[in-house]
C-alpha cells in the first residue's frame, strides 16, 4: 500500500458511443448493447474499415452560449468539457468554493485532426498547373495565407488542457498525458499520486479522444489493426473470440473526480471506490506489438497488486484491455494467467470494448468507471459478440450477458501502442 494519503473517486462523467452521460452509457453496458455503427462523420466507403463507435446526438450549444470562444473547440475538447462538468456535478463538490490551488487536473486528451478541406485547398493551389507536380513552397505559403492557425492550436492536446484550466478555474497542478491507449488510465494513476503526495486534494482526471477522421482511420487501416466486418458493425468488436479481426475505433470522453479520502468523508460525499493500486511499466520491445510473453503487462499487474496490498485471490473482476486484435487478446490472456496462477479460475474478465469500441486515449478512464459501477451494482459487465472459443484465450470472459457478483476489488488494464502498460485497482468502500 502506498504510504501516502488515500484517494477515492467521488464523481463520474462520460460521453461515449453508448450515451452522452454516465448513466445512459452504463445502462447500455448492463443491457449488452453495442455503440458501433457505420461511420457517418465522413464518407468512409472507400476505406477498408467503415465502422466506428461514434458519439451520437451530442449537443455542445449550451457550452458555446456560456463561453463563445469554445465555438472553435474540437471534438476532444467538447467531449472533455461535457464529461468533466458531469463528473464535477456528480461529485457534489462546491467546485467554486474549493481552494483553487488545491484542485488540479491530470487529463489525457488526444490530438485532433486538421480540416481536410483546408489542407486540400492549399494542396490544390500548390499543384504545378501543367504536370500536377506538388510544389512544397507554394503549399506552405498557401497554408499561411489561408490562416487556420487557431485551428492548428486547437488540434494540439494542450488545447483541451488549456480549456479545462480556464473553464474550471484551476490553479493547482495541471497536466495532460498522451500515451496512446493507456493515456487516461495513466492520467488517473498519476493524478492520484498528486493527491497522495499532498500536492492536491481534488484532481479532475480522465481522457478524451476522437480519431474518427480520414487521417486517423487511414493510419490504423495501414497498420491493419481495425476490424473490417463492415456489414456487421454491432458484432465487429469481438474481444477474445476466435473470429476477432481487429479493434473498432471509437470516440468520447470519461472524467472522474479523484479526492483525498478524508476530504471526501468530511463532506459526506458518495464514494464510488478507493483507488488502491497503480502499476506502470514499459515493454521496451516494439512500436506496436506487445511483448509476446506479456512481460510488461504482467509486471504492471503485479506492481498494482503490490501497491494495493492485494493478492491475485482478492481480485473479483477485471476489465481487460481486450482490444479484439489477434495479438493483444492472446498476450493479455497469457499475462493474466502468469500473474493469477491458480486463482485465475475464480477471476471474471471482460472487455467492454466489445460494446464501446476503442476510445483510444479515453479508453482507460471509461473502463475504470465501469469497474466502479460494477462494484456499486455487484454486476460484472459482459464481453459481447463472444461466440467462438479461441484455445489461446481460455478465461471466463463473462460472455454476452453480464453476471451478478459481489465485487470487492476490480482491476482495469490499459496497454498502449508504444509499450506503455497501466493497471489500476479499485476497492469497494
Amino acid at each position, binding site marked *: 500500500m502506498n504510504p501516502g494519503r488515500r484517494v477515492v473517486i467521488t464523481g463520474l462523467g462520460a460521453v461515449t458511443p453508448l450515451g452522452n452521460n454516465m448513466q445512459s452509457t452504463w445502462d447500455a453496458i448492463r443491457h449488452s448493447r453495442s455503440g458501433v455503427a457505420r461511420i457517418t462523420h465522413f464518407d468512409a466507403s*472507400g476505406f477498408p474499415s467503415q465502422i466506428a463507435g461514434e458519439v451520437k446526438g451530442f449537443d455542445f450549444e449550451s457550452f458555446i452560449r456560456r463561453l463563445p470562444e469554445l465555438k472553435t473547440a474540437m471534438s476532444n475538447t467538447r467531449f472533455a468539457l461535457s464529461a468533466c462538468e458531469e463528473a464535477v456535478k456528480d461529485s457534489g463538490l462546491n467546485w467554486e468554493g474549493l481552494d483553487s490551488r488545491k484542485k488540479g487536473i491530470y487529463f489525457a486528451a488526444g490530438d485532433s485532426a486538421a480540416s481536410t478541406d483546408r489542407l486540400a485547398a492549399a494542396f490544390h493551389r500548390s499543384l504545378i498547373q501543367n504536370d500536377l507536380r506538388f510544389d512544397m*513552397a507554394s503549399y506552405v505559403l498557401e497554408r499561411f495565407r489561408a490562416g487556420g*492557425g487557431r485551428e492548428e492550436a486547437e488540434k494540439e492536446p494542450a488545447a483541451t488542457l488549456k480549456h479545462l484550466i480556464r473553464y474550471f478555474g484551476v490553479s493547482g497542478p495541471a497536466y495532460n498525458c498522451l500515451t496512446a491507449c493507456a493515456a487516461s488510465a495513466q492520467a488517473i494513476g498519476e493524478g492520484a499520486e498528486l493527491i497522495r*503526495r499532498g500536492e492536491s486534494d481534488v484532481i479532475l482526471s480522465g481522457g478524451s479522444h476522437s480519431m474518427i477522421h480520414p487521417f486517423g482511420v487511414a493510419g490504423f487501416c495501414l*497498420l491493419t489493426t481495425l476490424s473490417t466486418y463492415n456489414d456487421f458493425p454491432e458484432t465487429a468488436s469481438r474481444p477474445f473470440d476466435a473470429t476477432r479481426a481487429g479493434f473498432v475505433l471509437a470516440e468520447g470522453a470519461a472524467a472522474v473526480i479523484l479526492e483525498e479520502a478524508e476530504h471526501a468523508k468530511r463532506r459526506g460525499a458518495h464514494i464510488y471506490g478507493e483507488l488502491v493500486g497503480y502499476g506502470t511499466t514499459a515493454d521496451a520491445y516494439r512500436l*506496436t506489438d506487445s511483448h509476446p510473453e506479456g512481460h510488461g503487462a504482467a509486471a504492471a499487474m503485479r506492481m498494482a497488486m503490490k501497491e494495493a496490498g492485494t493478492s491475485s485471490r482478492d481480485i473479483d473482476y477485471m476489465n481487460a484491455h481486450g482490444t479484439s486484435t489477434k495479438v493483444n487478446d492472446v498476450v493479455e490472456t497469457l499475462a493474466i494467467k502468469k500473474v493469477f496462477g491458480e486463482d485465475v479460475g475464480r477471476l471474471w474478465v471482460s472487455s467492454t470494448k466489445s460494446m464501446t469500441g476503442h476510445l483510444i486515449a479515453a479508453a482507460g478512464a471509461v473502463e475504470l468507471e465501469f469497474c466502479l459501477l460494477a462494484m456499486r451494482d455487484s454486476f460484472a459487465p459482459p464481453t459481447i459478440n463472444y461466440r467462438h472459443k479461441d484455445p489461446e484465450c481460455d478465461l471466463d470472459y463473462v460472455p454476452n450477458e453480464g453476471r451478478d457478483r459481489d465485487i470487492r476489488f476490480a482491476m482495469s488494464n490499459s496497454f498502449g501502442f508504444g509499450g506503455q502498460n497501466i493497471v489500476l485497482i479499485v476497492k469497494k468502500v
Partner: protein
Amino acid sequence: MSRRVVLSGMGLITPCGIGNAPLWAAAREGRSGLSARNEQDPVTIPVGVCGFVRDFQPQQFVKNRKSLKVMCRDIQMAVVASLLAREDAGLGEGSIVPERSGTCIGAGVFEHDPEEMADSFRAALTEDGHFDARRFGSDGMGQLFPLWLLKYLPNMPACHITISHSLQGPSNTLTADSGGTASAIEEAIRVIRRGHADLMFAGGAECRLQGAGLLRYHAQGMLRDLSRGGRYEIFSARSGGAVIGEGGAILILEERSAALARGARIYAEVASFAVAADGLKNHDAAELSIRLEEVMRTALREAGVSPESVGGIFLSSRGLPREDEAEALAIGRVFGASAVKPVLVAAKPLTGFLGYAAAPVSLGLAAMMMERRLSVQSFEDDAPYLAPNFKFARPEGSASWVERPILVHHFEEGLVHHAFVLTSAGAEAAPRSGG
C-alpha cells in the same frame, strides 16, 4: 524523508551544435546559434532568421538505422539526445537496470511532411480542389508509408527511447505546449522520489521549421522576423516576439545515493519544483505576475532556500511583451529586496525558442554552470529594461553566484507555470515533501 534527485547527464541538441560542448562554448562566448536561412535550410518558412540545427545526421548515432524510417525529425532528435545524455552520464552497457529505469517526455503534435502526403492528397482531390474522403480511402491512403501513423504519434519519442535503452519502468508523454517538457521533468522527479524508479530519461524535442510547422506560432502573432536586422531581445523595450529554433534535450535524472554509488558526475541536485495552472479568467500582466510569484516562492520554500541566497535565475522569457512584463514583475517582488540580487540568464537569445526542448535546455545549461562554476555570457545590456535593478550574466572569471542555488523558470500564458530550484551537488539542503 523524500528521496533526493540529481541531474547526472544531459544530451543537448541546439542551433549552437550537436552535443553539450558546442552549446557550452557558444554560451560562454555569447555567440548565438540563430542564423539567416541558407540554401540547405527549408525554403518554406515565413521568417528569415531561425535557430536551425544543421548537419544533423541521426544515422551517425542510431545503431538500428531502419528505425529512423519510422521517426519524424522531432523523434530522431529526441532519440539522439537520449543517446548523448546516456554517454554523458557514463551509463555504459549493462549499467541500466531496466525495471528501475524509465522515461518522461514532453511532446505535442508533430508536423507531417507535406511531401510525404502529396500523392495521397492528389488521389483524393476532386477536379475543383475539394477533398473526397471516399477517394482518399480507396486511392489515396495506399500511397502512404504503411507505418506513417507511427512516425507522428506524440508518444513515439518515449517509445523509441525505452527500446533504445531497455527502460522498462514508468514511461509517460506529457503535452502542454512547451511546458509539457517541464511537466515531464517534474513527473520524472516524482517517480524517483516515490521509489518507482531510480533513473529517468526526461526531456523533449521540437522541430517546427519544416513544412507549415510555424503556422501556429505565426497565427498567435508571436514570430519575430530578424531578417532586416536586429537581434532576439528579451526583457527589453524592443522585445517584439520570439525567434524559433529547433532542438532536442534529454536529461538523466537519478536518485542521489544511486548516482553517488556508481561514482557519477553530478551536475546539480534538483532540490525542488513548483507547478501551478494559470486558471486566470482575464489576463493582464499584473494578474499573471501574481501567479508566477506564487510558483517561484513555492519552489524556493520547498527547497528550503531563501530568495536572498539565490545566485541566478534562468528566465522563461520568450520576448513576448506581456509575458516578459509579468515575469519581471514577479522577479521584482520575490527578489527585489535582496541585498545581493540574483543574476539573470536567458537561454532563448542563444538558441531561439525551442518549444518542447526549451525547459530542459535551460535546466541543462544551468546545471553545467553550477558544475563548472562558470557563468555564461548574456547578450543583453547590463540593466534589463524591465528589471533595471538586476543584471544579466557575465562570464568574467569564476563567478561565485553559480555556486549558489539557481531558479529555472518556465511558463506560457494560459497554461501551466513551472519553477525549479537547482542546488550544487555538494549541498546538504534536502527537499521537503510535496514538490
